[in-house]
């Protein structure tokens, strides 16, 4: 295929094309809505008012957004080194285990120590789970995609075993640990607002939103403003050239997987430390896979990822309202949209870009 020569402008490749891909995904999703006999326009209206029309809706939207920022960053950091981390789901589950192990065993500590330790526990456990596939890719050549898929299943099996045999609360049939002590919680934003004399609606959005935004900013600094980030991008662009530049692709592979695992693991700070306050099974609910859509849509850039995570936050919260208003459109609609976004913004990204790109170049040529 002929690629247009030269660079395409930023507004085009980072703005217009991702936007059009999302529009395309929504159009196809609209056909699905038609197929089940509902009105797509009405559905879109309910979706957006449900997500953004009230403080309550916005709180939930931001709560979902937080989770997707973490899992999106986890996929994106590996992208920059040319790797595909499909293991976000498993790494996030382990992050939950990390939180629970710290909180349940060290609950004698003051909250000011315990909560940061629990966040570190989430990051460390997620990183440890990602380390093995990373190391195997780097030093044994096993493809990280396959190993992370396998590690997702292993994480589910491990969590199932832990909750059934080791950490289960004895007084309940439910697969969960005993509840955390009161101090071991990340404060909700409405609780924090009270400290400043403000009153906002109670929603699950909590301090981990700030943590997620800090992580996004941190990733921008890391990738574009540090030596390590430069090395990561070099390996991603051309591993062979990286070796000649004195960079070890193997080391970089392990490092990006560790960082990615830590980011995915920190998703548990939102779900477990911020909302559930106990370890439950399957709390990730596919967020690791939403991360793939978010990272692709955000084109690996932290700003894009935050925006894409916000869109998926809107979809998740609005989708819940939609399922309530039009029962035929269950929350699985979001999964369909997610799949379409991965398809259009990921697998078929060349389709629009090249075609429209040629038009732009032709227009420029005729102007000149």
């Amino acid at each position, binding site marked *: *295929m002929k690629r247009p020569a030269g660079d395409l402008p930023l507004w085009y490749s980072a703005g217009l094309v991702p936007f059009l891909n999302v529009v395309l995904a929504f159009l196809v999703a609209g056909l*699905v809505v038609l*197929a*089940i*006999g509902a009105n797509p326009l009405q559905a879109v209206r309910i979706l957006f008012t449900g997500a953004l029309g009230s403080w309550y809706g916005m709180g939930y939207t931001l709560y979902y957004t937080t989770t997707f920022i973490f899992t999106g960053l986890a996929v994106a950091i590996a992208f920059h080194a040319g790797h*595909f981390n*499909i293991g976000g789901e498993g790494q996030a589950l382990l992050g939950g285990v990390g939180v629970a192990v710290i909180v349940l065993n060290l609950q004698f500590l003051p909250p000011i120590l315990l909560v940061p330790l629990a966040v570190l526990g989430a990051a460390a456990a997620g990183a440890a789970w990602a380390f*093995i596939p990373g190391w*195997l890719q780097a030093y*044994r*050549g*096993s*493809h990280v*995609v*396959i*190993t992370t*898929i*396998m*590690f997702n*299943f*292993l994480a589910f*099996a*491990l969590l*199932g*075993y832990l909750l*059934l*045999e080791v950490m289960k609360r004895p007084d309940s049939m439910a697969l969960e640990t005993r509840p955390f002590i009161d101090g071991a919680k990340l404060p909700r934003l409405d609780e924090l607002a009270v400290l400043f004399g403000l009153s906002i609606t109670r929603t699950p959005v909590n301090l981990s939103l700030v943590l997620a935004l800090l992580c996004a900013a941190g990733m921008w600094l890391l990738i574009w403003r540090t030596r390590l980030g430069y090395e990561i991008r070099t390996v991603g662009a051309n591993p062979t050239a990286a070796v000649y530049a004195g960079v070890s692709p193997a080391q970089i592979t392990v490092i990006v997987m560790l960082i990615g695992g830590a980011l995915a693991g920190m998703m548990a700070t939102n779900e477990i430390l911020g909302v559930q306050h106990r370890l439950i099974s399957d709390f990730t609910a596919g967020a690791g*896979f939403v991360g*793939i*859509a978010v990272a*692709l849509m955000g084109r690996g850039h932290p700003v894009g990822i935050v925006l894409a995570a916000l869109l998926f936050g809107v979809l998740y919260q609005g989708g819940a309202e939609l399922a309530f208003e039009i029962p*035929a*459109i*269950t929350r*699985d*609609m*979001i*999964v*369909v*949209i*997610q*799949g*379409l976004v*991965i*398809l259009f913004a*990921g*697998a*078929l*990204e*060349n*389709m629009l870009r090249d075609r429209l790109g040629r038009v732009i170049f032709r227009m420029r040529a005729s102007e000149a």
Partner: protein
Amino acid sequence: MEQWFGLALVALDSAVRLSVPLLFACLAGLFSERSGVVDIGLEGKMLIGAFAAGVVAALVPNPWLGLLAAILVSTLFALIHGFASITQRGNQIVSGVAINVLAAGLTAILGNAWFGQGGRTPQLPGEARFNEIAWPLAEEARALPIIGPFYAEVVSGHSALVYLCFAAVPLTWFALYRTRFGLRLRAVGENPHAVDTAGISVTRLRYSAVLLCGVLCGMGGAYLALAQSAGFVNDMTAGKGFIALAALIFAKWRPVPALGACLLFGFLDAVAIRLQGVPLPLVGQVPVQAIQSVPYVLTVVLLAGFIGKAVPPKAIGVPYTKDR
């Protein structure tokens, strides 16, 4: 002794049943990946195939029409993957993920909207399913030592799709190693430039491989909905497409070892169900999760080259670009 033999036969019988969807998906992946197109969307294609089979068999009580529908829809999804991977030269892994997510979402929402049973399709009557075929003299043969019960329990009494599935193994072997198509298919997965130079279309070969992959995944899905169960149930593939992928790697992308790997993983699945809460000699009670994890662990260990080495086709995952 007698009792253990009986137990072994029952376990073997359920291993055969449980390995069928794995084997269909595994052979499907074999065609696609041998041609150089990575397919982690086996799970999704099988799922959408099972759904199509469940829907059609619920409307027209004929299992063969259900099978046809499964094959058509699964092939349609395979074509999307082919279009993204071959024509658009997109990322094949991303495309596979898209197929899986899309299938999971579509089956759930459409099933719920059309039948209102929380994503299930209606319970199928006997005539809409693939029923078990008793082989001639199966009951009479039981009297024979060892072979008799084996014939009656393991060989006889499966549905047509089971026999079709096991017949697909030698057929795949023949197609791959004894036909011109097979030679070209293997070549295009190793060195597409050489194939192109010989005047054979890389695109056409890869599309035919991807289509075959869709057909086989559809058959696997139809087996789940029309033979193993009586209708489609939400997420009924439950990771089988990924176990098939593991089996494919375990078999080093070869058809006969694929049969062995799928039987082994099917057997583990059968054992995991039976061993729940049963203490074993020496090790005591084995958690069911540990047995279920064996395929995944084995695949990781094998991929790491600690026991043998699984080397994928050389051109796998690389979109083909003609030199300009």
